[in-house]
Each structure stands twice: as C-alpha cells, then as structure tokens.
C-alpha cells in the first residue's frame, strides 16, 4: 500500500480527480470563491493531512503535472502572436502599466508587512509575491528572503487574483479586456492568467505577456531600489 501511494500514479490520479470535481462544482455553482485551483489545493491538503500521507509521496505524481507548466508558458506565444496587432497598438499603456504595477507591488507588499511588525526576512520574502514562481525564487534568494515562504505566497497571491481579480477590477472601474488582462497578469501571474484563458483568449494573452514582463521588471527594479534606498 505504502509503495502504491508513493508511485506517481497516486499523485496524478488524486490531482486529476479532485480538479475535475472542483471544476464541476464551479461550473454548477458559478460561485467565485469556488475557484477550481483554490478548491483543489485546499481539498488535497486536507485529504493528505487526514490520511497522514506525506507531501513527498503525493509530489512524486504532482511534479509530473507541474512539469506541464513549462511548455504551457511557451504555448502562451501563440495567443500573443495571434493578437499581436492589438497588443502592439497598446505597447505604451502595457509597458507603463506593468512597470507601475511592479513598483507598487514591491513597495506595498514590503511596506504593509513592515508596518504590521513583520521580521526582516518575512518582509523581504513578500517583495516578489506577484512574480511567477521561478523568477520569484531567484529574487528572494538574492535579497535574503525565505525561499519556501515566497513560493507559498506566490501561490496565495495567484489564487487571490484568480478568485476575485477580474471582479475587483470591474468594481474600481477597470472594464476593458486589455486592462483587466494586464492587471490580473501583473498582480497574479500564471494562476490569474489561467482563469482568464478559460474565459477570454485576448485578456489571457495580455496577462501572459504581463507574467514575463512583470518578472523582468521586478527582477530589475529590486536591485535598483536596493541601491537607491540601501535597505
């Protein structure tokens, strides 16, 4: 039994089954809190804890599913290419939006957690929270944050943006597909982008562009801010 649970088959079956059920729940209810990614993560964690199955066993299969994220990011080139004219017409708003977003992310995440009494490592770990996982980890390593904490916060940020990013945008008067795509991609990277892709390919393509550009902007801005203000 122990061997079966540690085989990749277990993690893959569990993830696919739970995700399919979560997707059905979302399709039936259309309730925004029932975001399939967030519901799947919570359900799988509860299941593993209840049955006392170590994360490492689950992850033997989990990492095979995670692997497909790599080619998916490359595949984002296709919607970008297909909508290139609309994107190029907006290059200035897109670039300025992303740089402003990256700057506001670094300052607000670090500022708020510092004001609330976060320790230095925690404050630094929050700095790259809006950036896609592989870039965020690189940044947090360089500035002295806690790598696993950053990885966890990146997922939390992504789920938050996927659950209510587009709704929040509409609430504050941001309604165009381009602006929503840019905001959700910049704030909540791939997880927010994945939700948009399911609803509208154009917003999804812009969000995909924002994942890469925000990663780049944050990776460049953090050392610059560090140099200017000497944290």
């Amino acid at each position, binding site marked *: 039994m122990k061997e079966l649970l540690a085989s990749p088959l277990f993690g893959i079956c569990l993830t696919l089954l739970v995700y399919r059920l979560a997707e059905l729940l979302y399709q039936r209810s259309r309730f925004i809190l029932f975001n399939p990614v967030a519901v799947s993560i919570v359900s799988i964690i509860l299941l593993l804890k209840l049955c006392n199955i170590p994360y490492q066993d689950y992850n033997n299969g989990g990492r095979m599913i995670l692997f497909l994220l*790599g080619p998916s990011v490359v595949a984002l080139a296709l919607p970008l290419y297909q909508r290139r004219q609309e994107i190029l017409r907006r290059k200035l708003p897109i670039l300025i939006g992303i740089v402003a977003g990256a700057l506001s992310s670094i300052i607000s995440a670090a500022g708020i957690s510092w004001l609330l009494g976060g320790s230095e490592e925690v404050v630094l770990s929050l700095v790259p929270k809006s950036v896609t996982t592989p870039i965020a980890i690189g940044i947090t390593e360089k500035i002295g944050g806690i790598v696993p904490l950053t990885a966890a916060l990146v997922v939390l940020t992504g789920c938050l943006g996927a659950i209510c990013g587009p709704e929040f945008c509409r609430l504050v008067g941001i309604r165009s597909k381009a602006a929503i795509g*840019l905001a959700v991609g910049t704030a909540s990277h791939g997880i927010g982008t994945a939700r948009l892709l399911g609803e509208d390919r154009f917003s999804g393509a812009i969000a995909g562009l924002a994942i890469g550009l925000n990663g780049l902007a944050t990776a460049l801005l953090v050392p610059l801010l560090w140099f200017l203000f000497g944290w």
Partner: protein
Amino acid sequence: MLQGMVLLLLFQFVGEGLSRLLGLPIPGNVIGMALMLLALVQGWVKVKWLEQAADLLLSYMALFFVPAGVGVMLYFDLIAREWLPIVAGTVISTFVVLAVTGWCEKLLDKQEESQS
C-alpha cells in the same frame, strides 16, 4: 499534436539552456516563450503546427498549478508565526497592484475595446 508538443518542449529546452548559460535572471520557460514568438513572427514556425498542442495546454494551465499550491502545506508553521504581516501584506498589496496596473492601462489606452 505530437509535432506541437515537440516544438514547445524544444523551445523550452533551448530557453532553459540560454537562461543557465548566460546566467539570466529570467526563467527558461519565459525565454522559450519569447523565442517561440520570434519564430512565429519570422515564419519559422507555422500556427497550424502548434495550434492543437498549445490550445490543449492553455485550456488546462490552471490544473498544472495545483501541485505547486499543495506544497504550501509544508510551510504552515512559518505562516502561522507571523500570519498578520504575511497575510495582510499579500492580500492588500495584490489589490493595490490590480488597481494601479489596470488604471494606468485604462488612462493611457485610447484604443477601442477589442472584439473577441
């Protein structure tokens, strides 16, 4: 289908290689995306070679994040210790970024709404 998958993985492989070789702060898959975009614009890669595989992967992209999220369970203790600065900083800052980015785009973008 297979043709598209091979191309996507090859571009990711080259992207990872460049990222490591040049010590770039950008992950390989993002470099792979940029290279694929270049290849499409230059006509080296045709849309129809890629379409099936890319559409399949993109429609399930959300699923691929689930195992990364489950990893959070390893760090519950850490989060519990300083939950207020961590949770408040993350949540409030996410909304700040959504608003700042969206407003900038809205103010500067004079194009009409795209049809899709």
